Structures are given as structure tokens and as C-alpha cells.
């Protein structure tokens, strides 16, 4: 008899659907069917047992080929790389659980590494705007239950977050929104007429790179000021009409995507989006939310904030105090300046996402990839450590795009012998402590430096 596992969380995007039903074969080794997931989520589950998986760590040989090694050897190799490096970088984390992130932070602190996550090349500019202007937001259930106006700005959930519109924003019938889609006005702002724009009541084709001006115009109109005939390619009448809808909403949410935080203006676009949200709260209720990409890319921002107070770009190389300065301590900038002398890629694919010059610099030094699958990073690494797939083979907590923690389940066992990200980092940490102890034993005079304490 096959077994159905219910209420399964999906390890694909920041929507974090937790209503999947997965059918597992008799022997618990094969995933037969996945219900409720989008096409991409579906594929992640089927991929887990559909083909060959890497079951042992692989170490690059002098002839360029990979050779299987044991986990113990891989852990020892990774710990030694970190121990010897002056400024290692540990980057990724979009696709793992928070337990893994906490363990990785312990390793980074011990090794004196730079710790960064995919926000660095994604919603990092949103963080910069939040530092300056705050973040008036809500949980997605609030939007579902209350919102009568929805704005998607520079985001295309129809492709990037396939079930976002049906679960939370446009279509669902909530407590105060019993008529579902019929009771909501949908506004889409995007230079491209996307598939999301197809379902909009009002589509504003903002001139590319002119989002800031359009926000500025909305703020001006909302506050009762005059604006020119055309702003950012949009006619004044239409801006006034939309501003009126925003002001008269009972409850509204602005969902924005990379179109804001990675087009010209970047954090400034997000900043003024937040300002518009603030302004609108003088009239009615408005909230704003970043369309975070991966299912747990919100996680490292949460975990490292409670551990160090910074969400990303953490420089822990001083070992006794953390430091964050995007531009200086951000992964791409460090790599472009060739400041990093060891690299761990975990739960992402820097090989595919980083600019080629950054990859070339990183590749001069030891490169370790921790990932369940073969990806571009794993194929150019010195060491590839396979791990269980979070949400499929490894349970744990992940943070949805609205910062709500979702408890993910395990559907099947990982391939025999394959361990979790958390265990990999815990074991690296243990090995680092051993290396440190060996060093101290060799040079007993070299004591730990006295801490200097501020203001006490």
C-alpha cells in the first residue's frame, strides 16, 4: 500500500505552500504523486527519487576528475580549508532550513568567515531600504482576509510564485473578502505586459527605469499636489484614478519584486514604495511586502538577525565582533576584488548566478559546494558534499516571504548515508574545534586574546 503524507511544505518559492499531499511508494523509497503543488514544486519532489543521486562526497583529483570520498574525509577537508583561509566566504542558504543556517553561523564565527545569503544578489536592496525607512507589512493571511486592493509592482508571480495569487492575494475568499476576486481591484505596474498583468483590472506600463518617478507622482497626488501631464509614461488622469483607488481602499497590499529592487534606483525604489505605504496609512490601511524568491531565503535574514543583528553580508572575520557593510562585505564585491581565499556554496548555485569574473576569482581558491544536486557550482568545485533535500528528506523550520515560520516535514528518507546541511556544519564545527585545540597544544603560549569590552 502506498502512503499519503499530508500538509507537506514545498521547497520551491517564497509562497511556502504547506498543503501538498505526497504519495510515497510501499517501500518508502519512491515518490509517486504530488498533489496541490505547482509544476515547479512538483518537479522538486519527483526529482528526489526520479533519477540517480550523488550519494557520497566527491573530491576533485589532480587530473580534473571527481573521486568519491567518505563524509569524514570531506568534513576534514572542509574544516582544514576554513581553518587555513584568512577570509573564507560562506554563501547561499536560499534552499535549506533554519537549523542549517544556525549551524553554519556557528562555523563562520569559529572560522572567522564572511557569511552571506542570496539576498546579497536579490532583495538585499530591500534590506537597505528597510534600514532607512522601515517595513509596514502584514502576514499573507491578512491580505487574504481583508484586502480589497492589490498592487503587484515589478513582480510577476504568475511565473515566479505560481500559487501566490490563488492562495493569498487575488483569488481566495477570506473572512472579509467573501466574494474573492470579484471584491478586489488588481493593479499591476510593470514595463512588460506580463502574464500577471493579464489578470489586472488596471495595468500601468511604467517606462523602464522610471519607477521612482511614478511612486513620487502617487505620493504627490495622495497628498493633494499637482503633477505633470505624463509621469514615467503614464497619463496624469490614470495616476489620479489609481491614487484615488489606493486612498479609498479598505485594506491594500503592495507586493513588489525584483523589478523594483534590481532596476535603476534599487533601494531608492523600495524606499519610496515604503514611503507611499506610510503616506497611505494616514488615510486607510496599507501594507507592503517583498516577493522573496526561494522558500527559505527569508530564513537567514531572520536567523542571523537574532544571532548577530544583521540579515546579510556579515563579516565575522574579526571573530569577536560582527560587521556589515554591503558593498564592502557583500559576496559579489568581495569576489570581484579577489578578497576571498576560500568559498563554500551552500543551498544555492553561485556558479550559475554570479558574474563570470566573480566566479573566476573565487575559483582560484578552494571551492566547496554543499548541495543535494548536481548544479553548475558542484561541477566546478574542489569538493561537492551531497546532502538531503530540505522539505523532502529533511524536516525543519523555514520562513515564508512574510516572515511566518512554517514547519516543514520529511516525506522520505534521504539516500542511504546522506546527511543534512545541519549535520555537515555541526561536524565541520566539531572538527574546527579539534584543529584549534591541536594548534593550542602545539603552541601553549599563544593564549586567546583578552576581550576588550565597550562602555563598561
Amino acid at each position, binding site marked *: 500500500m502506498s502512503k499519503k503524507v499530508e500538509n507537506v511544505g514545498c521547497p520551491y518559492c517564497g509562497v511556502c505552500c504547506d498543503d501538498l499531499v505526497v504519495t510515497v511508494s510501499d517501500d518508502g523509497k519512491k515518490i509517486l504523486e504530488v498533489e496541490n503543488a505547482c509544476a515547479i514544486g512538483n518537479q522538486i519532489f519527483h526529482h528526489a527519487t526520479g533519477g540517480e543521486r550523488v550519494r557520497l562526497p566527491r573530491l576533485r583529483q589532480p587530473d580534473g576528475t571527481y573521486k568519491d570520498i567518505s563524509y569524514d574525509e570531506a568534513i576534514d577537508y572542509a574544516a582544514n580549508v576554513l581553518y587555513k583561509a584568512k577570509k573564507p566566504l560562506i554563501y547561499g542558504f536560499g534552499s535549506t532550513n533554519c537549523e542549517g543556517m544556525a549551524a553554519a553561523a556557528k562555523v563562520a564565527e569559529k572560522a572567522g568567515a564572511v557569511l552571506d545569503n542570496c539576498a546579497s544578489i536579490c532583495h538585499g536592496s530591500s534590506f537597505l531600504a528597510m534600514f532607512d*525607512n522601515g517595513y509596514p507589512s502584514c502576514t499573507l*493571511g491578512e491580505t487574504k482576509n481583508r484586502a480589497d486592493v492589490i498592487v503587484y509592482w515589478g513582480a510577476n508571480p504568475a511565473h515566479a510564485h505560481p500559487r501566490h495569487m490563488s492562495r493569498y492575494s487575488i483569488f481566495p475568499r477570506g*473572512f472579509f473578502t467573501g466574494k474573492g476576486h470579484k471584491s478586489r481591484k488588481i493593479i499591476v505596474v510593470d514595463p512588460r505586459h506580463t502574464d500577471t498583468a493579464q489578470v489586472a483590472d488596471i495595468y500601468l506600463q511604467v517606462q523602464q527605469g522610471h519607477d521612482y518617478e511614478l511612486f513620487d507622482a502617487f505620493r504627490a497626488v495622495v497628498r493633494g499636489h499637482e503633477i505633470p501631464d505624463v509621469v514615467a509614461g503614464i497619463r496624469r488622469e490614470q495616476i489620479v484614478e489609481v491614487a484615488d483607488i489606493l486612498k479609498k481602499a479598505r485594506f491594500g497590499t503592495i507586493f513588489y519584486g525584483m523589478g523594483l529592487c534590481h532596476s535603476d534606483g534599487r533601494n531608492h525604489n523600495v524606499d519610496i514604495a515604503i514611503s507611499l505605504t506610510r503616506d497611505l*496609512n494616514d488615510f486607510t490601511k496599507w501594507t507592503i511586502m517583498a516577493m522573496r524568491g526561494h522558500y527559505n531565503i527569508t530564513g537567514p535574514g531572520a536567523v542571523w538577525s*537574532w544571532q548577530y543583528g544583521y540579515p546579510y553580508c556579515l563579516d565575522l572575520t574579526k571573530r569577536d565582533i560582527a560587521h556589515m557593510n554591503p558593498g564592502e562585505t557583500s559576496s559579489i564585491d568581495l569576489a570581484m576584488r579577489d578578497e576571498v581565499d576560500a568559498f563554500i556554496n551552500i543551498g544555492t548555485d553561485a556558479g550559475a548566478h554570479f558574474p563570470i569574473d566573480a566566479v573566476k576569482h573565487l575559483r582560484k581558491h578552494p571551492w566547496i559546494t554543499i548541495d543535494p544536486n548536481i548544479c553548475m557550482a558542484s561541477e566546478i568545485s574542489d569538493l561537492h558534499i551531497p546532502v538531503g533535500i530540505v522539505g523532502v528528506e529533511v524536516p525543519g*523550520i523555514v520562513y515564508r516571504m512574510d*516572515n511566518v515560520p512554517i514547519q516543514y516535514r520529511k516525506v522520505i528518507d534521504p539516500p542511504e548515508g546522506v546527511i543534512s546541511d545541519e549535520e555537515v556544519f555541526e561536524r565541520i564545527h566539531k572538527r574546527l574545534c579539534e584543529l584549534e585545540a591541536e594548534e593550542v597544544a602545539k603552541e601553549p603560549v599563544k593564549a586567546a586574546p583578552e576581550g576588550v569590552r565597550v562602555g563598561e
Partner: protein
Amino acid sequence: MSELLIKNGFVFDPLQGIKGDRMDIGIKDGKIVETSALENPKTIDAAGMTVMAGGVDIHSHVVGPKVNIGRLFRPEDKLFKSPHKSPTCSRMEMGSSVPSTFKTGYDYARMGYVFVNEAAMPPLHSPHVHEEIRDTPIIDNAAMPVFGNNWFTLEYLKNNEIENNAAYTAWLLRATRGFGIKVVNPGGSEAWGWGLNCVHIHDPVPYFDITPARIIKGLIETNEHLGLPHSMHLHCNNLGNPGNYTDTLESLRLAEGYTPKNNFGREQVMHVTHLQFHAYGGDSWGNVESRSKDIMDYVNAHDNITVDMGQVTLDETTTMTADGPFEHHLRALNNLKWANVDVELETAAGVVPYIYSPKVKVCTIQWAVGLELALFSKDLMRTFVTTDHPNAGPFTRYPQVITWLMSRAARDETMKTFKWLDRTIESTSIDSIDRELTLYEIAQMTRAGPAKALGISNIYGGLAPGMDADVAVYPLNPEDMPSDPAAIEKAFARCAWLVKDGVVTVKDGEIVAEPAKRTIWVDVKVPDNAQVQRDIYEHFLRHYSVKLDNYSLFEEHLHNPRVIEVNAAQ
């Protein structure tokens, strides 16, 4: 296991009525024991020092989503304000007004505290709260889920269904591994879902059509129906506004006629938190004045109420509360950055940085109001030290607050820095109060009293045999108190010794061990209630954005639990 003998200290234990007697405290296997039960103990020489039970904080925002947003969106709270890592601690310590979880644990321990009650847990975010609890070293934590704007609660109480509300409450305490009933701006945070508020306790909540007064009374009834260790824990409506003391008095009066029903030694039915923010007269910021006397006269005369101070410490800090509309209001006052999180069906929250400056009249009046509350109190077993961390100031300023309470000279010293001293004195009573609290009274306000009010005084807050071996030794000689108030502050900031669960954890103000911490939660048995089960099922089916089965905390995410069992099934 290990044995310890803390010798010759001056012991202050209000739970046993011990007022500075020179005594020995015996410890065996993590518990306090009669000294005669020890065979071969290690000795701690506490001669000339003050010995108290480990501190208990009844209200502090230390873990959870809004605390973490405060950390995340304020990098300036770290820069040049974080200490370098102590070589004796295992982790870095970052942040000041909203410290990292590690710094939170270490700093509380250095001050001799062992138990901290997280003041507001949004139930939907309970896995987050418990993740942060895991990463907060040394101190034991409990967390109170918020009920005052919860749709289930509003619906049950509107229909006067106390039993149903009790069954739901028991279910939610278990689902979130929570400790007690927290109420924040009842009704107002739900109204904030529409950008509105319930300023007065008779303003009806939009749609739900129930008043804050009815919510408060209903939750007192629910709490006593269940017999929980702690009472209903209230953050009143109309926080922080001139003239709000009348609303506060009206809220306090709602407790009249209720008596506590519990097996935990708790004697109050209502705990009113950060009272300082609720004791203002006047009708504008121009003429705001202290009404602490009116408030404390009422509290002194009604022993079914306990309160905590919410003392303003005159620092730059980060305000954060489930009172969403208040934070929006504050944003308009200081125009700084503003974070907000409305939580579906349950609550809201806001975060705004704030600078309490000795140069601003309102801030110095707030400072005086907080101290007056304690100094007017006739029963310090019902009046507790808090700063509503980090709202009125960070918890790391408790030593300063204690010093202000113990020393008129310290208060005068601080008042000298006020730009609007005359107007502050005019608008408050602080200058006419000479009272200086004793070490015994401080022990009441910081351990015995809060432990009793939380219903955990059989475990924490005292030094009787059988209790947890949590003992703080402060380098203060009661027979030779320092004339310089700064020395008192220093002593309370860095205890000479902290023993936690029988393990020497702090020595000479430095962390020397990190014993396992605990999560305290309350498990209430109630009769099966089919209607409540159906209501829960329906709301999760239609209105929540997560599945019911993923909402309750998974056992694997609960760390080192200590469960307090309550049987309300009879």
C-alpha cells in the same frame, strides 16, 4: 552530583521573610537543600555580600518576530555599540537596545537573572519564538501568547462563552507551548486591521462588536476558570497618551469582584504591565503630568492586582509592541522608520526607534512617573521592576533603575541633567519623595514578587529547600552600603556569583559556564469540546494561510521543556 555551599552572605528572601540574615545556602543536584544535607561541598565565600534568589523578569520582549525586526532594521543599534566577544563566552554579543539572543542571555545572567517571561508571542509565529529561545543561553524562558485581539476569543467572549474560550485558550497554550494569557490593547489591534483603534475601553471593536472592557473581563474569567499559574496580563488601551490615566483606572476597576482561583500561590487576577505608560494626566503634550498617585492609590487598595513599572531609562531605544496603532501613532510623533506586522486572526505589531532624552520635557516626566509608581507603592510584592524592555529602555539598565529606587541622591544626580527640570518637578511628585527602597524591597520587586505573580514561586524567586538552585550573590554589604550610588549600580550590573541550576555560571561578573536553559510552558487539561474543535477546523480551513497541522509547534522545535500541568477538566 555537585554540592555547593554559599557561606556567610546576607540573605534576602522575601518568600521566606528572610531580611538580610547572615546565613548559609546549601545546594545539591541543582536544588536548594538544608546545609545539613551536604557532605563535601565546594564553598563560595559570600561574607560581606548580598545573597538573593536568581532574578525573575515578568515582562520583557526578548524573543520573537517583532524583537527580531527591531534587530534586523536597526544596524545602527550595533555599530560602535556592541562589546567585543568575551573570551569566556562561546558566542559573540551584538546589539544594545535590542541585543542578539546570545547577548540577552549573557547580560541577564551577569545581572543575576535566571528567568525571563517573553511578554508577547504572536501564536502564528510560535516556531520562531522557540527557535530564538533555543539560541538564548542560560536563562529559562516562558512566552505568553496574545489573546486580546484573537478572533476566536472575540467571538466566544462576545457570546459570553467562557467555557469555549477556556477550551480554545488551553488548545492555543498547547499549540504554541505558551505560558499564559497576554492581552495587548484589547480590541485596538484588531481595529488596526482597518487602520483604526479602540482608544477607550467602551469603544466597540469594528465588526466583532465587543468592547475592550468585555474582552478584559472575559479573559479574567477564562484565566480563573482554568486556574492558570499566572493571571491575565494586561497592556491597557490608550497607551502613552496624555490624560490616559482615567482609562487605566477604568481598566483596573474591571478586576473588582474577581478573586484568584489557582493552586500556584498567585493572589492577583490581573497583572497590569508597564504602568508608567498609562499614568498620564493633562490633555496634550504641552500640559502632560504625572497621575501616578491616583493610579497607585487604587492599586494599593486592591490586592487582586499586580503591576510592573515600565521605567523610562533616558536612552536611545527601540519601541516594539503588539499595540500596532500605537506604533503608527508614534511614527507620526518622531517621524523615524516604522515597521509593522499585522498577524492574521490574532494580533498586530509595530516597531519604531525612539530616543528618550533628558532634554525633552515629556521624557523626563515619563522618567519621574515610573519611579513614582514604585515609590508610592505600599506593597512591593505587587510592584515589579521592568523597563518593558526595550520599550522604555533596555533591560541592561535594571541596575540603574534599582539605584534610582534605592537612592534619592542618585535621582537628584540624574535630575540635574534635565533641561526642563522645573517643569518636570511641577508636573510630577518625584521631587517631594524621599523614600529609598531597601535591599529587601528590591528582592521583592525583582524575584520574589514576580515569581509569585507568575505562579512559579515554588521553583523560582526564593531560596527555600527544594527550589531550583538559582542564586545570585552581589558584591554589596548591607551593613556598609556604599555612599556612592554608582557602586550600587555596578554591583547589580555584574553579580559576584550566579549559580544557575546548581552550576556556577557567573563569577566576578563574567560568564564562566553556559548550563542548559529551559522552556517553561503550561499544559491545561480541559474537557473535550467539540464546538471549539470545529471552530478551529473551520477557521484554519477558510481563513488562516497555514494548515492546522503545521500550526501547532512540532515537538522537535521545543527545547528542553519544563511543563507546568493544570487540570481544569473537573
